[in-house]
């Protein structure tokens, strides 16, 4: 009881002591208790940390006395999930572009319900937002990490069957939990602008961004955000450098692009710069041709028959003289019209 009182006093002092207060003296062992401590009869701290009783020899008691139930036969084997996608799901995936109740296309296709409802709604909402802001729609097919598609279904065939007539789109096969398996295909108009290298860079960057998260749903989030950014830059290239056009026969016609105000200005600036460049180039070429022609030009006077000029050997002609003594008088009034030599010296 005395020991408890002593520890309580220490605790109270620790709590109550403030700066500048006089500290009470520390407790001291009474001679009898000190003797017991030396003999080992009292273990300091035993009352606080006494779960390992002295009677148990200092060994921790066996807390998990109840044993786990025996595993049922067959349960000890590891569970292997099927990598195949059922036929019913395949039909739901690829029978067409799914639409919502408003008739708007659903950009996130997940008939296997791999995402929770709220997760699905969040990602679908983001993709819808992206579609509203960008001319390149993004359609994402969700599969489980290790699922395999039948050989006859590839991302290219899906694009060709469902999206080739739709305009600029990006189709993604995303394997939830394994972003590195993601596949991307872009419509012909985009491929005409963005090189293969650029496309693969966009996919790699998106996958890398996905790996920043550990949760598969958040991985998908990161993947979509990065891909959306990359598509935005590709779209800028499309709007600025080239008008959308059919890239190849299979891609078909591409829907007209609604170039935004900023892009229009940029396009005009580029067109103006291009024309100025062409004009300057043409001017330069004209100047060069003129220069080369002028350098080759020689003016030769033909022999013309003239009357004798008093037989003088040279300098029969006497040209004009102008005085530049005054800046106020025009040259015509400073013209000495009468040859001076008429006035005999």
């Amino acid at each position: 009881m005395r020991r408890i009182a002593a520890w309580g006093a220490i605790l109270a002092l620790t709590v109550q002591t403030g700066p500048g207060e006089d500290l009470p003296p520390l407790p001291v062992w009474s001679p009898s208790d000190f003797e017991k401590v030396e003999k080992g009869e009292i273990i300091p701290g035993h009352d606080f940390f006494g779960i390992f009783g002295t009677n148990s020899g200092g060994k921790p008691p066996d807390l998990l006395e109840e044993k786990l139930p025996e595993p049922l036969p067959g349960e000890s084997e590891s569970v292997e999930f099927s990598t195949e996608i059922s036929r019913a799901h395949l039909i739901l995936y690829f029978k067409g572009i799914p639409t919502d109740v408003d008739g708007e296309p659903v950009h996130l296709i997940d008939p296997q319900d791999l995402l929770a409802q709220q997760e699905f709604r969040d990602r679908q909402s983001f993709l819808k937002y992206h579609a509203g802001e960008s001319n390149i729609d993004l359609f994402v097919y969700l599969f489980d990490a290790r699922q395999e598609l039948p050989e006859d279904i590839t991302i290219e065939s899906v694009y060709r069957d469902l999206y080739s007539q739709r305009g600029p789109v990006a189709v993604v096969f995303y394997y939830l939990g394994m972003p590195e398996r993601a596949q991307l295909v872009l419509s012909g108009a985009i491929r005409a602008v963005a090189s293969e290298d650029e496309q693969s860079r966009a996919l790699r960057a998106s996958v890398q961004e996905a790996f920043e998260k550990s949760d598969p749903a958040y991985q998908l989030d990161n993947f979509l955000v990065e891909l959306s950014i990359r598509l935005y830059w590709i779209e800028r290239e499309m709007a600025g450098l080239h008008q959308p056009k059919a890239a190849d026969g299979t891609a078909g016609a591409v829907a007209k692009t609604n170039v935004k105000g900023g892009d229009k200005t940029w396009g005009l600036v580029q067109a103006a710069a291009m024309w100025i460049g062409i004009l300057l180039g043409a001017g330069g070429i004209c100047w060069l041709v003129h220069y080369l022609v002028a350098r080759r030009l020689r003016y030769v006077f033909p022999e013309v028959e003239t009357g004798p000029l008093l037989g003088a050997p040279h300098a029969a002609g006497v040209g004009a003289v102008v005085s530049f003594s005054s800046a106020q008088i025009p040259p015509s009034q400073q013209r000495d019209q009468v040859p001076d030599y008429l006035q005999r010296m």
Partner: protein
Amino acid sequence: MQCPHCGFEIGDVDEIFGAQDVRLKCLTDAAGVLKRKERVAARKMLGEFQRKFPQLFCAVYFGTFKELPSLRQFGFWLLNRGAFEDVEVSRPNEAGVLLSVDVSGKSAGITFGYALQPFLDDEGTFKALSAAHPFFLQGQWLRATGIVVGRISRSLASQARRAKRVPEAFESVPQPAGEGADKILERIRANHRSSQSRSQV
């Protein structure tokens, strides 16, 4: 040989400037108004003139004359007595154009050889000088020279093209055969004397 109108002859100016031939170059800066770079540029300009007109040459003389009676007389004399060292012999002085500038007297004149008589006239040469007048006033000698040479070149190029098309336009009526310059001079003088005697009567 005297002028039938005024009796002027080369001997008159020889008495002033000397009867000996003078050796000089196309660009003579006796007044020392051009900088080294300007001299190089001026020589290049005169070389270009010679390249363009294989039969002609152009010379520029900058001088300071204290008591020059006439710049025309000086130009006339220099084109007759000048031996231009850097001009090929195939280009005689009669095919020369001389720009003479009296820097202290503030006057500039153009004299040209008689081979150019059909192609240049006083009016054309005066226009060339007038175009360079502002630069002469400011003492921008190289620029003034460039303008004069450029104008003369353009005028000559135009005349050369025209002469190639219609050479008859530049031909003057030839004098009757056998009548030389001496005879013409005598005839004019005789007429001149007879008119004087008539007026005295």
